């Protein structure tokens, strides 16, 4: 089960220009391109392309890892898939020996996706970054700042304490009342 929102319909991605194969049209070309991206992702653990391609690749990469986790390396269908989707065959070992143990107990998606800034002036293409979680690279997003001491938080925190104490005192009062009623009856 994919743990991220995916598109109800696939993108067409028709007419792919590949370095070796040249221009490939149609469904087959789409898969060829995605294959390269998935291979790259498993190899480098972080890739950067057109955002739409990243988004498409994400589903395939996650499904591949998912089937590998579910079925293991003794399963014929899974091995066929791994063989197809990973152009460089040494990555099959990486899939089963590195990625499967890494994502065994994940309850979230295995990948992260980001949009990168649109380069201006330029072609205006929306670029994206796709990465496997737990990769050795430095984080894409900078570290989140500590907001504890921002004035709004200081005030809210104090308000929270007040609120909780008053709530508890009310609760204990109610309990006392109810217990006294009980004893009377």
């Amino acid at each position, binding site marked *: 089960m994919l743990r991220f929102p995916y598109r109800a319909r696939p993108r067409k991605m028709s007419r792919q220009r590949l370095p070796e194969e040249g221009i490939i049209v149609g469904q087959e070309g789409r898969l060829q391109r995605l294959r390269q991206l998935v291979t790259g992702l498993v190899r480098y653990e972080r890739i950067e392309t057109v955002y739409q391609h990243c988004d498409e690749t994400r589903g395939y990469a996650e*499904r591949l890892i998912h089937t590998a986790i579910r079925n293991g390396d003794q399963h014929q269908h899974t091995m066929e898939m791994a063989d197809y989707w990973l152009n460089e065959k040494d990555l099959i070992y990486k899939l089963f020996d590195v990625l499967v143990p890494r994502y065994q107990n994940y309850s979230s998606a295995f990948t992260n996706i980001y949009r*990168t800034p649109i380069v201006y002036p330029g072609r205006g293409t929306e670029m994206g970054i796709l990465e496997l979680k737990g990769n050795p690279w*430095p984080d894409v997003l900078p570290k989140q700042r500590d907001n504890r001491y921002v004035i709004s938080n200081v005030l809210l925190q104090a308000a929270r304490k007040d609120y909780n104490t008053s709530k508890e005192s009310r609760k204990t009062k109610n309990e006392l009342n109810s217990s006294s009623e009980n004893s009377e009856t």
Partner: protein
Amino acid sequence: MASYSRRILPCFWKTTKLLTFEDSARRVPCRYHQELLPTRNYLLPETVEEHRKSELSKHPELPPSITSENVPADFRFVYPEFLPDPQYDRRDSIRERLEREDMYRRRAVIDIPEFYVGSIMAVTVSDQYSPNKENRFVGICIDRGGVGLRAFFILRNVVDGQGIEIMYEMYNPTLQSIQVLKLEKRVDDKLYYLRDAPQEYSTFPFDMDPIPVPKGSTVPVNKMKVQLNPRPWLERWERQDLQGVEDLKLEQRFYDKAAKVAKPWEKYDLMKWYRENTNEEERDSIMQEVHQRKRLTDIEKSKRKTKLAERKR
């Protein structure tokens, strides 16, 4: 690595005025305009689910999900119609739940046995036009499909040299009984090619005796190969990857064309498979539920039977 980060976040914007983060954070998109823009006039399934669980109001409690059942591996092939329609924009958890509930109720009343494409079955339906108000048909199941209350199967037989097919809905209340005369599977998912095969392949006597399958044994697979009639056909069978058909004995050009239009890569399209099928985890949880309900109804049925037997005594 430094080079990498530069690749990700190039410094390309040159302005005369210097601006920084907070400044741009304040330049928020104009929502007022966006609100007036046309948006989709329906909600996403996730949004609806969120509201159904919202703590801001009272909602009916959903029954807890079942995880304790020991479901056999091939259980889902026996009850394929319980798996929901995987089409993303038609999914709805409450509708699926209520639909399944109806199916359990119907299954508690009549016995819908285990059957597969290729099994020989006898179906009795009530027919207000026939003199005995009943109609019985025997035939081989050539297709099975549909989801939920729409589930159906098609029987085919040849009577008096006339090929006849009848489609039955599994949850139709006019259905009185379904009997499996011979439980077996075929190597193909659909047997529509029997329409273009000689009639003896789909001829079954109406007074056929049921062939019992010993309990606990696996369902036998009939690997029979059918010799089709010569062309013309209703469909281009050479283009479908049929296992249960003898060599078609066509000219080479047919095979060439078939190879040309074939899509061998489709089986590797993982997302296509995922979009067209219910995913494994959801499937497992539904099958757990089905298994539990089946167990409970079986117990009830046996109780009822023993009671009846006692009364007769």
